[in-house]
């Protein structure tokens, strides 16, 4: 399971692996995690080359799960197998988990204050803006008619009409992949 890059290097110590993701987990959030990880993994430590990092990033984005956690599992399991993936993911989730519970505690204590509520209202609006900007970035890759229709169908049924998400995703995801496999690639050529 070790990649070509690790073959000629001594294995990365598990604690180092966990430490890198621990630090990134504390200092970054939202869309900036990938940039921090790039600096740590590619530029500073040379654990991955650039192409490998981009593959990792793409997989982390398209698969289910939070992108930073997926990235940590990818990198950890590439460098040290399953246990490496678990260590990296734990390092990535641990600090933010503690911080968010701290914030949750403050919310319980001060959440009834109108000023706090107003600030959270503003931050929720910022959060939606972050979500939309990620959606726009992804949407640039969706250019053909059928994929656009699939994205629109999901938005309208789940977002506007409040249909249950699970059956919609279970039907549309395999359909989308099969269309790309047997029809999309040929049409693009």
């Amino acid at each position, binding site marked *: 399971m070790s990649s070509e890059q690790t073959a000629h290097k001594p294995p990365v110590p598990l604690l180092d692996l966990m430490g890198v993701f621990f630090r990134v987990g504390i200092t970054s959030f939202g869309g900036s995690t990938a940039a921090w990880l790039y600096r740590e993994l590619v530029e500073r430590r040379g654990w991955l080359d650039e192409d490998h990092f981009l593959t990792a990033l793409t997989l982390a984005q*398209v698969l289910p*799960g939070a992108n930073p956690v997926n990235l940590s599992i990818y990198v950890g399991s590439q460098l040290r197998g399953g246990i490496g993936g678990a260590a990296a993911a734990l390092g990535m989730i641990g600090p933010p988990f503690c911080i968010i519970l701290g914030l949750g505690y403050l919310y319980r204590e001060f959440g009834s204050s109108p000023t706090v509520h107003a600030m959270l209202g*503003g931050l929720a609006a*910022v*959060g939606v803006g972050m*979500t939309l900007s990620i959606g726009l970035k992804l949407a640039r890759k969706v250019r053909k008619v059928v994929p656009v229709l699939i994205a629109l169908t999901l938005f309208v049924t789940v*977002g506007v009409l409040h249909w249950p998400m699970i059956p919609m995703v279970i039907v549309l995801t395999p359909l989308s992949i099969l269309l*790309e*496999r047997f029809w999309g690639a040929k049409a693009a050529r």
Partner: protein
Amino acid sequence: MNETRLLTLILVFAPLSLLSFGGGQAIVADMQHQVVDVRHWLSGPQFADLFALSRAAPGPSTLIAALIGWQVAGFGGAVVATLAIYIPSSFVVYGAVRWWHASKDSPWRGALERGLTPVAVGLVFAGALAVLEAAHVNGLQLATTALVTGLLAFSRVGIYAIMAATALVYALLQLL
């Protein structure tokens, strides 16, 4: 009583974990529906508050599951919800990474990449709409969302700066 609540947390979050294509944004719509409309664990505005906290905190936005779990069943609820939201997807990722490197020339690789993108896009926009609805947003918040989306898409302004400025402006508007 508490065991039932923990079990329900797993039943709500573990399936969502497997469906969170493109990250936590994709499942916000369904999470809001389950937590507010189906289980009545939180009110719409409470959900919007927790969403705001999860976006303002470092770490992935899916950690909103920890906050919901904590509200529902205390610290144990936070741990259980967090494990339920990360473990299923992590196994999928681990399996996919192994498969990905074992099948370098498979035409399915490109199809998977391209086929999952429109699913993620549709769900991300649905999630944005769900939070706007849950928060009962006013005009100022809509304007903030539009401004932030534009800033993040077309400028290099840091998100920390945007969040600090927004919190300050909203606090001042409230106090005045």
